[in-house]
């Protein structure tokens, strides 16, 4: 506003007036800059900053959902979840020196494992040498074998390096923590190193089942325990300990790689997922839906609980009902144990069993003996203990032989040979082959077990007495027709994956001319390249064991389930089920249905047939007659084992004795009970168990006794000594 008074003030110099004007101009410009900047920040881009401010303060905190229970076909709980307080250490809090140690440890351990595998390979070639010498091992070889088998059995232990002396802070932390949760500082350090070596980005669990007072102590003094997390976590619990332990698998935190995978879409980092076994196959159902709560975080990262935010309750995973029958599983485990004990003079340690409904592939019992207490894996397990559980001395309890061990199956393979021969027209059910006790193949003479001779045989009779000569003849004749025996074996379900709904299954091998000739070509090429003489140990070591091309003898061997044949007990069970049910190849499975917490059906797990095989019912009948005779006729191989078995009228069973040089024979039994409502196929095998009738057949009978609720737990060893 113009003010006339202004004019009458003392005049200021023009220079000063100008400079004041400049100052005023500068001030005006500065205010204008700030003003427009404010306009830009607050009016034009305010919304951006509002959302940034929200991201700043709100954190979504995951609430873990408990996994669903796993129950058997009758609803008995096999795997459940319990709450436990756990103490963990976050890898982000560890000093670099410790992380470096973990890295070095991981490298050292994998190097040791490499050494072990090499020793195992050298041991195998040495044993082959000894076998081929046919005069037993020389002194030097025996010494070498001892040394190698020791090396091959277990990787050289890698000790965890001590905490570097410079890490006094970390040492003090371990000591403080150790005192509270009662774990030695040295053990804490070991668990940290082993844990980081295993899963570099996951929290390392130091102890589970932490007592309440220790839990509260740590929780209230967070600043004294930097990087230590105490949390309530859900742990898996296995009330039946070793029963089915190899089937369930474990749970662990999802890895960064898995987070990227399609099947884990929508799973948050830090979620526990199923690893291996049923936990992995049915993870989708068992996992549940995590809840979350939004909490307000201040600038220091600590929670501000003055304000409550949204919360979604976690939902427990669904309940999974298996086809497994816990009682049968227990009986089977005991049966194999008794079989192993019966053959202890042979050094028997291990065996496997499969019990399956042949109509639909429902697994009633499946497992490997010895087993382990599954609860051990719900706690932090030391590398030492893990190695023990994988070691040969203890029978490798972690190894599920029923699906992952492949063996020659001995005479239990004969029904498959029979089916191939009948269907390919090599014989008819009434064709006669004379078994005079000797079978000439080139310059070699093969004989029956115990040098028996059974005279003129038709197929059923040959199966009943388990004549090798009869089946050698079939094998020889089929060799001229190409891989027909092999094709039939695969068609029936042997020598290929059955598709069971748990991971870790092995395919096995049905040897044929193609495979062997191709392998031999490569062997020759390799030997030439490596400049080693063909047929020597050096060549074996460098180029593998296919040292000769296919001969008729290979097919002859296969016909009686010997030689290069590699099949799992589960495959054999599938093959028997296919013959028994008239050609339907089932997919063995453990998952039956998905239920909610109250046991109401949510979803049935449908497991369709894998395929159908066409064969003449008359051929099936001939084979079944033979198997029925083998289990019940006076001259049957396992008739003494089943002499007083209540369902012997509908029992079909075949013994097997697989030669596994240089080890003692492996005992096999495969059987089928054609019960109108409770049909079952059972396959048992006992490594180093001797003849089929000695250990595997009595074990199978014990399983059947339980299945048909016959109060009989006598282990009736048979006396038959045929293959």
């Amino acid at each position: 506003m113009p003010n006339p008074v202004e004019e009458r003030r003392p005049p200021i110099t023009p220079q000063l007036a100008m400079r004041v004007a400049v100052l005023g101009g500068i001030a005006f410009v500065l205010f204008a800059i700030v003003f427009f900047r404010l306009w830009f920040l607050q009016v034009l881009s305010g919304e951006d900053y509002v959302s940034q401010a929200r991201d700043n303060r709100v954190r979504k905190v995951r609430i873990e959902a408990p996994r669903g229970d796993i129950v058997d076909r009758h609803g008995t709980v096999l795997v459940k979840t319990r709450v436990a307080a756990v103490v963990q250490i976050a890898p982000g809090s560890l000093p670099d020196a410790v992380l470096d140690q973990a890295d070095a440890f991981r490298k050292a351990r994998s190097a040791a494992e490499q050494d072990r595998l090499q020793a195992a390979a050298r041991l195998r070639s040495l044993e082959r040498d000894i076998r081929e010498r046919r005069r037993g091992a020389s002194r030097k070889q025996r010494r070498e074998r001892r040394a190698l088998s020791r090396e091959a059995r277990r990787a050289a232990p890698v000790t965890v390096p001590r905490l570097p002396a410079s890490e006094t802070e970390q040492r003090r932390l371990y000591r403080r923590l150790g005192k509270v949760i009662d774990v030695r500082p040295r053990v804490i350090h070991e668990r940290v190193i082993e844990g980081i070596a295993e899963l570099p980005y996951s929290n390392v669990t130091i102890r589970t089942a932490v007592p309440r007072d220790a839990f509260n102590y740590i929780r209230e003094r967070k600043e004294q325990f930097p990087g230590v997390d105490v949390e309530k976590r859900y742990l898996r619990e296995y009330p039946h300990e070793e029963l089915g332990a190899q089937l369930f698998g474990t749970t662990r935190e999802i890895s960064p790689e898995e987070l990227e995978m399609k099947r884990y879409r929508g799973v948050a980092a830090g979620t526990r997922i199923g690893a291996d076994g049923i936990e992995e196959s049915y993870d989708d159902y068992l996992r549940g839906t995590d809840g979350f709560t939004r909490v307000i975080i201040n600038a220091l990262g600590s929670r501000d609980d003055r304000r409550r935010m949204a919360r979604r309750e976690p939902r427990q995973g669904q309940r999974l009902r298996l086809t497994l029958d816990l009682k049968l599983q227990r009986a089977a485990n005991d049966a194999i144990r008794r079989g192993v004990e019966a053959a202890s003079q042979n050094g028997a340690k291990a065996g496997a069993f499969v019990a399956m409904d042949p109509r639909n592939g429902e697994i009633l019992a499946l497992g490997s003996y010895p087993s382990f207490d599954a609860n051990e894996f719900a706690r932090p397990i030391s590398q030492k203990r893990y190695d023990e559980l994988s070691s040969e001395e203890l029978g490798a309890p972690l190894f599920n032989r029923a699906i992952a061990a492949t063996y020659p199956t001995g005479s239990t393979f004969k029904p498959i040979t029979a089916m191939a021969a009948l269907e390919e027209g090599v014989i008819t059910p009434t064709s006669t082959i004379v078994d005079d006790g000797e079978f000439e193949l080139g310059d070699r003479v093969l004989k029956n077990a115990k040098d028996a001779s059974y005279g003129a045989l038709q197929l059923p009779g040959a199966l009943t007495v388990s004549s090798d000569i009869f089946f050698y003849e079939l094998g020889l004749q089929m060799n001229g027709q190409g891989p027909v025996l092999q094709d039939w074996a695969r068609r029936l379900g042997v020598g290929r994956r059955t598709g069971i709904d748990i991971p870790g299954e092995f395919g096995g091998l049905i040897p044929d001319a193609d495979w062997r000739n191709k392998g031999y070509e490569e062997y020759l090429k390799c030997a030439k390249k490596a400049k080693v003489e063909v047929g020597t140990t050096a060549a074996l070591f460098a180029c593998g064991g296919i040292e000769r091309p296919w001969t008729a003898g290979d097919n002859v061997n296969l016909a009686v389930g010997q030689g290069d044949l590699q099949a799992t007990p589960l495959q054999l069970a599938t093959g028997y089920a296919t013959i028994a049910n008239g050609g339907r190849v089932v997919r063995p499975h453990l998952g039956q249905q998905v239920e909610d917490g109250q046991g109401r059906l949510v979803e049935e797990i449908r497991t369709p047939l894998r395929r159908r095989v066409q064969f003449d019912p008359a051929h099936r009948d001939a084979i079944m007659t033979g198997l029925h005779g083998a289990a019940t006729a006076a001259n049957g191989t396992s008739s003494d084992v089943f002499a007083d078995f209540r369902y012997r009228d509908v029992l079909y069973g075949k013994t097997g004795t697989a030669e596994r040089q240089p080890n003692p024979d492996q005992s096999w039994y495969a059987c089928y009970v054609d019960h109108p409502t409770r049909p079952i196929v059972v396959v048992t095998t006992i490594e180093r168990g001797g003849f089929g009738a000695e250990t595997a057949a009595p074990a199978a009978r014990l399983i059947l006794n339980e299945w048909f609720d016959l109060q009989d737990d006598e282990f009736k060893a048979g006396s038959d000594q045929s293959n």
Partner: protein
Amino acid sequence: MPREWRLRLDPLLLLATLGLVAGSLIALNSATANDIPGQPDYYVLRQGIYAGVGLVLMYGASRLDYSRLRELRYPVYGLLLALILMVLAVAGVTRGSRSWIELPFFNFQPSELGKVLLIVALAGFLVDRMRRMGRDTTARIMVLGLVPTMLVMAEPDLGSAMVYVAGTLALLFVAGAPWRHLAALSALFAVAVTLVLVAAPMAGVEVLKPYQVDRLTSFLAPSADPGDEGYQQHQALIAMGSGEKTGRGVENATQTSLNFLPEHHTDFIFAVVGETYGFAGCALILSLYALLIWRGLHILTVAKNLYGALLAGGITVMLLFQLFVNIGMNVGIMPITGVTAPLLSFGGSSMLATFLALGLLHSVHAQARETAELKGRAPIFQ
């Protein structure tokens, strides 16, 4: 004839001052309620006391005959140097690095009072040599200004040092130093800043401490690393921007209440206003500052003598410089230098020194009006 009593203060300047103090108290009240557990009023109460004492001090200063201060230029300059040296000495004894002296009631920060003392003394020296505004005078004044600047920088108090330089240049400018001198000085400072920020670190010579260099350059590249200077600036921007037009209110101003905004009672109090009261609040504060600066420049033009004009010019430019640097840092266009916002930021020394300076402005204004009356002229605003 008994002189009738009337307020010897410029009402508009007083209005701006009281408005800013009120704004400061309101912002502190919402920003610092949770800072000290159990004492939600800790900062507000103290700032209120400082303001009360400051107002009294301001009134006292306004009654002072400021022209007498010109005669005291040597003692004032001596006091300035003595105070700063005392801080350095105390810091040396306690082996700490700090810029204040502990007094019974508050921590006295001489560099704040020094801003006023420097203007008072330098204005006096300038008036002496007013007739000959040659190269000699410019150089002399610059040296007189740079001595306390260097000492303050050694404390280390980079912000105050910058204010000292700004004040010194402002005095030279108002006193009528030739343009080419001013241009030369500007060029000199540009070179010095380049040397200190770019050349010296590359040559491995440490003129500023690394954290100071970081602070000065971080506004060019905000970073997400907490604890980092760029992070502070980024959080200030989020606070500022999230206020939008009318602010988020005290309850929802999470940047402030959850401590994401650092130094929210001192350096970044303007961002608190921005977050809590939005563009409207900021505009109001800016207007009050504009009023303050306008009144300062007005007083400069009406001063009864050159010394008064220099005082008014020096004080006004110093206030302008501080508020622009501080607000600029709050809105992300200036580096973080630790310069506080006059009258708005919490701090006893800064409040009292600012009130003292404002008191001198009032004094210049009152005497100008008195002189005008004596010469039979009508009062300006009555």
